[in-house]
């Protein structure tokens, strides 16, 4: 059987600086395509309802919950996942230094919010930082560790290239 079908479409996504093709249904979530088709499992399905933030990725510089984005909506946008940070973001080192995780399941999502905040608003004050980080939930830590990690990064200058 060989058939052109309206059920599925071929899309090209710009993920971590690479153009990747995927065959998707219009209703497929970006989160599922990242995980199941590209093997980028850093983004986690904690609720698939936009409540927990563990699937957060960065789209055009801003943190976005990938369970609330259709894969087809992501065409033409720049997507960065935790794998794309490749250990080079100061936020990653700060999370290690300040023990900002325990089980690690929410960590990718928090890292993407923190990385975006550092890139977009490196002069953010405590209130603004809280505003940004409230989008995500961590069940293990006391949040104090995540706060300290983020604060330590905000004190540094962003090296935007």
């Amino acid at each position: 059987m060989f058939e052109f079908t309206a059920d599925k479409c071929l899309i090209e996504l710009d993920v971590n600086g690479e153009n990747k093709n995927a065959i998707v249904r219009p209703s497929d979530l970006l989160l599922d395509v990242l995980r199941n088709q590209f093997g980028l499992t850093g983004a986690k399905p904690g609720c698939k309802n936009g409540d927990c933030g563990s699937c957060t990725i960065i789209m055009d510089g801003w943190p976005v919950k990938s369970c609330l984005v259709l894969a087809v909506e992501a065409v033409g946008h720049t997507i960065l996942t935790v794998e794309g940070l490749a250990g080079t973001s100061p936020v990653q080192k700060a999370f290690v230094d300040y023990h900002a995780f325990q089980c690690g399941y929410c960590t990718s999502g928090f890292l993407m919010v923190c990385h975006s905040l550092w890139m977009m608003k490196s002069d953010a004050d405590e209130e603004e930082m809280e505003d940004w980080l409230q989008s995500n939930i961590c069940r293990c830590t006391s949040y104090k560790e995540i706060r300290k990690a983020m604060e330590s990064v905000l004190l540094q200058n962003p090296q935007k290239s």
Partner: protein
Amino acid sequence: MSELRRNVQRKESWDKVTGNAKYCDDFSVSGMLTARILTSPHGHAIIKRIDTSSAWSIPGVKAVITGKDFPVLCGVLLRDRPALAIDRVRYCGEPVALVVALDEETALKARDLIQVEYEPLPVILDPADALKEGAPILHPQVGVLFPDVKDIYPIHGTNIASHYQIRRGEIQAGWKACEYQVEEDYYLPPSDHLAMEVRTARAQISADGKVKITTTSQAPFSVKKQIAEYFKIPAGQIEVHVPLVGGGFGGKASVMLEILAYIASRKVGGRPVRLVITREEDLQSAPCRLSLRSKIKLGADCQGKIQAAEITYWLDCGAYSDIAPNMAKSMASNGTGPYYIPNLFCNSFCVYTNHTYATSYRSFGHESFTYCLERAMDRLADRSGIDPLEFRLINAIRPGDLTPTQVQCTPSNTGNLVACLQKVKDLAKWQGTAPIKIEPNKVRVQGVSCLWKSASPPTNAVSGAMITFNPDGSLNLNTGVVEMGSGNKTNLAQILAAKMKLDISQIHVVYDVDTRLNPEHWKTVASLSGYMAGNAVCQAADDVLEQIRTIAAQAFECQKQELEIADGMVFIKNNPNCYLLFKDIVAGYKAPDGRSIGEPVLGRGGFMLKGLSILDQETGKGKPGPSWTVGVQIVELEFDKRDFTYRLIEAYTVIDCGALINPQAISEMIAGGMAMGIGLASREYLSYDFQGVLQSPTLRTYKLLHIGQEPDYRVGLVQTPQEDAPYGIRSLSEHGIIGIPAALGNALSRAAKVNCTQLPLTPEYLWSISQKGQA
């Protein structure tokens, strides 16, 4: 010893910040099918008919399974739970059918075509109702079917799954000695573990019958045993894999989804099947935290010494008993809190209702009974006219005192609560009971609660450790402990590094557990991994050190006693220039002349709990766990009298940690527990309507703490070594949660001038009880 007091990073740190850390559902298997569950929309109903024919008609559907396909009863203590409901559903969310299909969309489509006809039955949502005359009996077979299960005492013809009692002293004489008394009733609704990783499992069966299960479990060895038992498979045919786990908090110690994944695979000829569970299903269908009703009567003499207590706990275990009978036992054995009460009359019942069934939750029920007991303590302190912190100091359990189950306390087995109380007084600058006015409508208050906990493991629980070496002389540490966030693997590596006098970077750990490769570790629960696996690691290290010494003694032609081992080498004490590096000796030694000496070094260590006993059925006398950890917590908040809202300022814990292994990690584990306690106390609960339907099945309706809502957390440590634990450490992974709800309840009761007897402590609740004029 240099590795001991050091702050070390988790071994898996960089994996967790780069997305490299893999959890159960991050792997795909070729040829994998997907399964989804159909659940009951009723709290309690007869299943009159299930029609799966339309579901079967969808192309791509591989199996539609109902309870009668696998009529097996499951349960870790009492086998009261069918894998899939048979004839009757007992809670809303109970799995009724399972669809296996080529992909998730097809499975969902088919699932929605299954027709089930129900006949609703009366719903019980409160243990008090469950015990009333004429209440529907949820498990008529309990007490008949499995009469010989040890240490569980179901009462046939009632909704009581088990009951325990503590009798000590002369209760009537005790009351006569009392000058002051309080008697209070408490109610705590159920809540959920809410680990960020939703529970899931997958299974496959090879042509020759080998079963492979990969799961998010805290108890892989228990999965193996239970599947073997239920389906009559030799345990050696079953392998259970657990990669990193995204938080457990006790909720992943229960064996449920693994069974569903197994029967799904069985029904499709053993093909790999992934069971997809949504957050909503995880909240409704998989086990949650218990609900509790209690009555506490406490009395103190004119010096403020507690003389008598009559306590009843009615633990609501929901529809199935799971591990809850043990939690009821744990509540009985520790239900006085860390206080010496000479005359004690305590009953603890485990009661079935139509709530989602309960399983272990961080601290195994201690967070729940502690709320009740410590609220009563505060009331009694007030009535006695004694400062509540002072009142706790007067009654704190001390060496020589007996616990409720008549174990004599020693500094080693119970630590030093008095020192904790003295320390917290300074740390929190204890202000006493009077609210301090900070604005016309705002007051600042503190509330205090003590905590203690012992584990209630099987009396013969085991652990093990094995050590191998790499060509560079570094070590591989192999245990059956699951890494779910509590940092166990790093702690064990640190213990091994200390024993070997080696830098921790030279110790490698494997995160995945494979029940065929790893030595059995009972379960990663009860904060016991450091104690049990830690002891096994110490023994394995001694084994390795002895083997290295033996080989080196032959190589140097000296006595073993002349040798010292440190920094990855073995050398002669009097002549450190005469040394051999691990890398040159651990695979056996090749002498300069080519002679081979010794053999490869392989370390082994085993551990089994010793000296524990089943509680006497009449008096409760016995030893339920290896030791207690004690501590005290204070919550400080600002309360707005106009609208009953409050802001948390500080939360303090002083705990007896036994010894410092990784000081920062200890503080963070405690702070994480405090955060969970604040969530539990201030907002979390599973809200059911009168028909037993969960009204808060998403994270939008089941609210958790977010950043910006938390107080500052401060942790103080007291060190009284536990003599039989590695380097004297004590269990503390769960403990940060235990006293927080009570401390918050005590603070708010003073601030709002009310008597908090429930959770969660929402402004609405505080306002409503203030209207009733009680205080």
